[in-house]
């Protein structure tokens, strides 16, 4: 009896600690959301999560931004960038992955190893020359330097998809061979439809990374009209100017909504994706 009640007490203690620690973990996010409804004076020096009353002024003020530009434009830009890059990167990565996973061609192993090496190459090495190349061909202040490379596939995603395709039984390909299908037909008719889980995982991650991308837009988008949400938020909070924290928190909260919505809708796929590939969220 004593040992049983001790066990129950242990279980309760475990839950209390886990919930308390979990609260600490998400406190900063909750604090940010609650601040988006507070007056700027209320934000200063307060750790409270409950605003005195729900103000939507911050959202109205923040959305207007500065001059004639509103966040409508920034959200449009972010969506354009994220969606196009994602479509490009997922389709091209799947295509390349099929080549590596299913066609035993000469040089396949060599190129696969090269691709693996590029994954640990720091972006800083190619950042400067890439910038100069894109500048020379007049791509600065367009979305091309951000979107076009995505249509070449991303080694991380290719790697993930190769792993996935290798798990699909080869017998399926072989029976298609007998039916007279070529590689292209095998890819589009047999492998591609079976890749759904891998496609969903990469789509989610690609969208996240593009939505949160900062360095790329910072380098290539210098006109306020082209700003993505991330870039606009950062300009908003420039320490050199007096900062409207309420408005920043309001727009910051809005910027998290697409990410949160996808997280809630596709959590199962996310867990799998991270667990199998070690990708960062």
């Amino acid at each position, binding site marked *: 009896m004593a040992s049983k009640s001790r066990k129950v007490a242990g279980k309760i203690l475990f*839950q209390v600690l886990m919930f308390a620690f979990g609260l600490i973990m998400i406190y900063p996010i909750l604090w940010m959301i609650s601040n988006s409804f507070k007056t700027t004076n209320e934000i200063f020096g307060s750790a409270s999560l409950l605003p005195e009353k729900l103000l939507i002024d911050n959202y109205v003020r923040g959305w207007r931004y500065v001059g004639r530009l509103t966040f409508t434009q920034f959200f449009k830009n972010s969506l354009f960038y994220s969606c196009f890059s994602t479509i490009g990167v997922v389709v091209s990565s799947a295509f390349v992955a099929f080549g*590596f996973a299913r066609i035993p061609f000469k040089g396949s192993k060599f190129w696969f190893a090269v691709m693996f090496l590029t994954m640990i190459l*720091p972006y*800083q090495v190619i950042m400067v020359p890439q910038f100069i190349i894109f500048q020379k061909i007049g791509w600065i202040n367009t979305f091309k330097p951000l979107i076009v490379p995505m249509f070449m596939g991303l080694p991380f995603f290719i790697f993930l998809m190769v792993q996935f395709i290798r798990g699909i039984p080869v017998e399926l390909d072989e029976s298609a061979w007998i039916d007279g299908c070529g590689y292209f037909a095998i890819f589009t008719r047999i492998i591609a439809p079976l890749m759904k889980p891998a496609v969903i995982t990469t789509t989610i991650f690609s969208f996240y990374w593009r939505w949160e991308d*900062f360095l790329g837009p910072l*380098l290539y988008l210098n006109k306020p009209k082209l700003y993505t949400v991330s870039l606009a938020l950062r300009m908003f909070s420039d320490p050199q100017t007096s900062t409207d924290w309420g408005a920043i928190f309001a727009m910051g909260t809005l910027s998290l909504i697409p990410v949160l919505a996808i997280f809630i809708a596709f959590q199962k796929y996310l867990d799998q994706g991270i667990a199998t590939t070690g990708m960062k969220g």
Partner: protein
Amino acid sequence: MGLSTTGTRSFAAKKELKKTIAGYCFISPWLIGFLFFTMLPILTSAYYSMTSYDILDDPVFIGFGNFTSMMSDELFWKSIKVTFTYVFFSVPLRLAFALFVAVLLNQKARFLRFHQTLYYLPSILGGSIAVAVMWRRLFMADGAFNAILEIFGLNRGISWIGREDTALMTLVVLAVWQFGSSMLIFLAGLKQIPQSYYEAARIDGARRDQMFFKITIPYLSSVIFFNLIMQLIAGFTVFTQAFVVSGGSGDPLNSTLVYALYLYQRAFKYYQMGYASAMAWVLVLIIGTFTIVLFKSQGKWVFYESKGGK
């Protein structure tokens, strides 16, 4: 007979050729991208690193000039020191937290799914600018962190992001706070460990900590190894968080001037493309050295099941 063997041979060769063509067709998007957006930049970067180049005028070859001036550049050494400090604290702490929480989540209890979501959420949102901006506000003198300290009577009005000795630590905390992805990877690894190992150990009278160090850690070592490499690379190239929290300056007193931020400043604030390229190659050298040392040390502490090691 002779005819038929050459026939099959040429048929086989044809098939081989067809495979090669098909293979290169499929990988062509990546291959073209690699040649133009990676390989070409790598080669030009190697050249630029030996030049003085401000974009407007043509690059001027100066040999190892950039590398020698780096040696006497105080800010370069400062950024090295800041980055190593950042990596030294953030990577082990992040992995330790990730492993600790993963072990807690890997048992039979209620609400685990819910807890897992709570702990993972900061990692999903943490990369966004909104969170980095919020972080700055959180650790200001009149931010929420001090307001919480106030409750315990510990508030001394310190601006954590404004002081030279604490600013970098707010970035470390921001990194450690996002331990969620490593945690999920560890959790997946933990679920692979056969329960019979633990049962056998329990019968032998092993304590919990013994089981942790003798079974869990060795079994997870390959996952830890993989995580360690990925986190080291991410740590050495950290940019956005430092950029946003310090407003792009690396202040206060360059205490948050991480390597990638200093490189960015040299390239896009002062337009010293040659110097920035040289810095990038030093970064490759640093990351390469750590990766190689880790790979060499693998045999001593990483165990792979297929080799029968335990």
